[in-house]
């Protein structure tokens, strides 16, 4: 059938005249960054966090052997081309996502806990407040985002739906990233919007500068107006206005950061994407391509991405699983369903491996973009059938010379995954908080 589908063919995406845009020279950044971030103690410059939902089939994911000489199990076969740049970690846990008498929200807690290490309490028990914690990506963004136009980027391949869910607070499952304990970040799903956020409307540098100036003056005026409003409101109710003002300041900072572009180099940009591609594979690749561009142009150094919402029933017809992810994840030991779930797991690993491949294809200094980046891929659920949060599937890609890739490391039961988050933050030179959620110290990757 030749009816044009919505998918934007990748070839035409990467081709394309598009606008030229003034950007820092990548190599010229290195001396500047050496002074602030790239030291022996902070060899990682960029952090990425990619979430896959509904756990995995352990028997096909966890290698039998540990160390460097392990065979890739079926679900990890797509890692073969980048094997030497990936650490397979097993045995990590997020016990804070356990029920603790809080009812059945394992899926939502799984997403909420992954970068926070904090239990997402049912709001009604908590007196109406929705509280979590600042997530690891935002801890990183506070530091790494100081010198980039966007502190961080939050992407999702699935828009929150209104499905009835299995707990009182489904919105916990709508995002991976929380700026503060009470303010979740929205995740962006439309590639066109992502493009605009990264590269603006296009136009000449002068036009974009003028656009920024205008936006800045609007924001100043809005702050003034908000202050006048604050005086009228009671202290208890200022929270939304505070969220608004903080968002204003965040945007003001981005404008400032964009103003301090230094060396001018043109980067050929592809055409702005129009639509969400119909196939999940093309969609994921489009979003990955944007992310790679964002890293390459140093527009941001931190991103988090949801391949799917927890509990999603996304069907995967292109790989022979039309049924819906959540359904097959509850395989109840039926071998047919187990095989289907494993296919989905493999597909996700393939997406991850191809993303790492894209990063590896971009030279930086005397290495590649992948060498100075750390990308985590995993789930807050271990066994999707049992809804548990132990033996979490976890892959750490990148960081050549830092994380000696190509090994399988197994940890004692209940080792907090938050320890890994601490290690990642540490290698990126982010000042470490006392703890992240339930962390007990940095994870040794020796």
């Amino acid at each position: 059938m030749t009816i044009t589908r919505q998918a934007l063919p990748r070839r035409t995406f990467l081709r394309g005249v598009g606008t030229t845009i003034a950007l820092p020279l990548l190599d010229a950044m290195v001396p500047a960054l050496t002074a602030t971030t790239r030291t022996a103690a902070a060899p990682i410059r960029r952090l990425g966090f990619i979430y896959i939902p509904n756990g995995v089939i352990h028997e096909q994911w966890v290698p039998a052997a540990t160390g460097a000489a392990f065979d890739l199990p079926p679900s990890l076969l797509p890692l073969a081309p980048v094997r030497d740049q990936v650490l397979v970690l097993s045995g990590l846990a997020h016990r804070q996502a356990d029920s603790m008498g809080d009812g059945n929200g394992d899926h939502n807690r799984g997403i909420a806990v992954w970068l926070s290490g904090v239990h997402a309490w049912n709001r009604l028990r908590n007196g109406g407040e929705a509280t979590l914690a600042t997530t690891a990506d935002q801890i990183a963004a506070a530091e790494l985002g100081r010198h980039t136009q966007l502190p961080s980027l939050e992407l999702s391949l699935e828009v929150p739906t209104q499905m009835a869910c299995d707990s009182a607070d489904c919105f916990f499952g709508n995002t991976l990233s929380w700026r503060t304990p009470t303010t979740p970040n929205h995740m962006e799903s439309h590639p066109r919007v992502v493009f605009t956020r990264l590269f603006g409307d296009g136009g000449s540098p002068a036009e974009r500068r003028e656009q920024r100036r205008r936006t800045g003056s609007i924001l100043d005026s809005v702050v003034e107006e908000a202050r006048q409003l604050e005086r009228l409101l009671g202290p208890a109710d200022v929270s939304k206005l505070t969220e608004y003002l903080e968002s204003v300041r965040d945007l003001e900072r981005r404008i400032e950061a964009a103003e301090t572009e230094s060396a001018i180099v043109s980067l050929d940009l592809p055409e702005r994407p129009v639509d969400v591609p119909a196939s999940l594979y093309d969609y994921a690749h489009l979003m990955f391509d944007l992310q790679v561009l964002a890293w390459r142009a140093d527009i941001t150094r931190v991103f988090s991405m949801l391949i799917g919402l927890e509990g999603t029933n996304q069907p995967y017809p292109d790989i022979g699983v039309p049924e819906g992810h959540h359904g097959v994840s509850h395989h109840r030991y039926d071998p047919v369903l187990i095989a289907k779930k494993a296919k989905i797991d493999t597909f996700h690993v393939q997406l991850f491996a191809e993303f790492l491949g894209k990063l590896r294809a971009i030279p930086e200094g005397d290495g590649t973009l992948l060498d100075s980046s750390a990308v985590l891929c995993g789930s807050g659920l271990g066994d999707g059938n049992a809804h548990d949060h132990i033996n979490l599937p976890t892959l750490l890609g990148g960081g050549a010379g830092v994380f000696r890739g190509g090994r399988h490391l197994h940890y004692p039961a209940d080792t907090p995954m938050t320890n890994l988050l601490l290690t990642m933050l540490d290698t990126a030179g982010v000042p470490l908080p006392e703890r992240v959620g339930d962390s007990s110290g940095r994870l040794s990757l020796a």
Partner: protein
Amino acid sequence: MPVSAWGGRWAAVVGALLVTTSPVRAQSPEGLAQPSTRAFLDRYCVTCHNERLRQSGLMLDRLETADSGGAAETWEKVVRKLRTGAMPPQGRPRPDAATYDAVATAIEQALDRVAAASPDPGRMPALRRLSRTEYANAIRDLLGIAHLPKGMDLALLLPADNSRSGFDNLADLLFVSPTVLDGYLNAAREISRLAVGDPGMPLLVDTYRVPSELPQERQLEGFPAGTRGGTRIQTYLPAVGEYRMAIDVSGASREVHGLEVAVDGDRVGLVEISRAHGESYELRLPLTAGPHVITATFVPPSGALSEEPVLRANNRGGSGATAGLLGQRLPALAAITVRGPYGGAGAAETPARRRLFVCRPASDADEAPCARRILSTFVTRAYRRPATSGDLDLLLPFFEEGRQAGGFDAGIQRALERLLVSPQFLFRIEKPTAHASGAPARVSDLELASRLSFFLWSSLPDDELIDVAARGTLRAPGEIDRQVRRMLADPRAAALATNFAAQWLFLRDVETRRPDGGIFADFEEGLRRALLRETELFIGSVFRENRSVLDLLEADYTFLNERLAKHYGIPHVYGSHFRRVALDPAGPRGGLLGQGSILLLTSYPTRTSPVLRGKYVLDNLLGAPPPPPPPDVPALQETGGDGTPLSMREAMERHRVNPVCASCHAQMDPVGFALENFDGLGRWRTTGESGDLIDARSALPDGREVAGATGVRDWLLAQSGAFVQNFTERLLTYALGRDLDHRDMPVVRGIVRGAARDDYAFGSLVLGVVESLPFQMRRSEAARMARE
């Protein structure tokens, strides 16, 4: 819906001995009411729910009386269990219906008295961000732009809102993040430029793709007879000029096919599609500014003998392939891209400009005063209150800057851009009152006007409503009643069907259902749209015609077009447009549960699910959701020991046999089984997936039988009290923008009682909500001291 805080399982039973919340018949003097309630508890409840056993954490032997006001939350739970007949459980001594009613009523009366003595409207934050839907409607009403160009689609520019209890307008979940604020800034810039017709704005480049799953060999709804396929685009063009339409087709054949392009119903071009020419075509059209409907559809070749045989509806396997009878390809429309304006003549009269420019400056000196008038009018509408000089002081600098750069219109555009990101536009603001006593206070007339319009229209109050409120006459006798009736009759009240009801019933999730193409070969996008349209029109009719909400359960009509009628097997419905069709009252269709949208919603991609359907009915229609399942539910065997497929009932036998499963499934499964004659797409069938004849009789736990879809309907109507109560709770949640808790239950009961007189007509329930305490009032909070 208060979430049960009780841990553990309760052997709940639904559906037995339901009584309606009718006004009290037996009036007991207060002195006797207590002893009889206490006696009731002692006899039927305390055996399990006592201090020693603490079944489900409940100690009814120690409970203070309902009259005292304490333990109201527990008493509300007790009442709910009594009203639904869930307690005492089957197998224990249970009272008769009259006693159930009398005791429940007595408790409710005590609770209502306590609530009346110390009214509490509940906690509402002072600021609530507009939901995305509300923002879109506000733009529509402010500027007269109902359909933004694709590139400015708000679903693109603004992130989706969170929802809980199904509603996305709950104040607590409408967060602000840099992403959403960035979205507002972009939207403000683009929309203001579009509205003013800024000649400097970037060219529109909007691509409208036709989903490949939409079959194009038959006439689409609303298109002329004889046409097939195509698409309809609704947009708003910024300026007069030439617009270039790039048309992409697929499957062009040797034969020439005509694609008619029309703008606002008038043909503007006939494109001849053939393989010789290829798959891309371009039309250049001079178009005016403002709203336009652009359609493209294939027309039959004129007169000449066609080599194409008569079109038949073919099995497409869900892939959207369009094939003629002999399997040869028919061209299908893939996408249309609209670019323009070229050679624009600039600003012209459009609905948005008419709304905006309430005056035009006669001279240069007139520009500033005219701008003040324009902005005052706009601020009043956008901020939902009369404009002040302070508002203008913030906006006029932007007007000035724009005027100096590009003239009067540019000035207005800049000021509008600034206005659209003002927190006074983006947030609904209710100023706290300074009652030190903490007694609830009435919201101001203007705040009430906003509450009304966002409830009934999901949008801004109109000029008349603001005017009445600003003059302080909104609460004059009879005025609210008058306004509500006026607003319900206004077309904007369609939001109650498309926003409230669609969320209450989770209809938006129908968009994401993907029935398996192998099993449900008939399914395609056209059917999905038709299913949703039927339900949207049906609910709209019940609301607009002020029918009893019980008609949602049982109606003798629905809305169909030919496609949908064929799907349901209803004869003699021709044509692609929807129209009201009478249904046999004794038949299974009629009411929400006979509609494919809901039946599709409650099925899996490959099969029906009695459990999903049962849960949906219990949760969304009766307000009595079963507890959530445990995580490691054992397998649903789909084949028997010898490999033959099991019928749905056999497969779910474990639900019945295992007592741990049965405690909840005994409630859900029977309802779902009775609906088994509806397949996963809502078609009527007599055999199930296993090939066995469907037996749609089910026994409810109390022994009562429901037989088929009509049985479920009768059973639901027998519990009209629970349905109306649940409907009212959802309506009140939506109207207030917050979850309800036990303190709101007396209010809900009051609204239901009030509407009983009119047989629960929709309008009466709406009025009841509007006149209720939490809608009219808010808690008092001390204002922050005005500083320096």
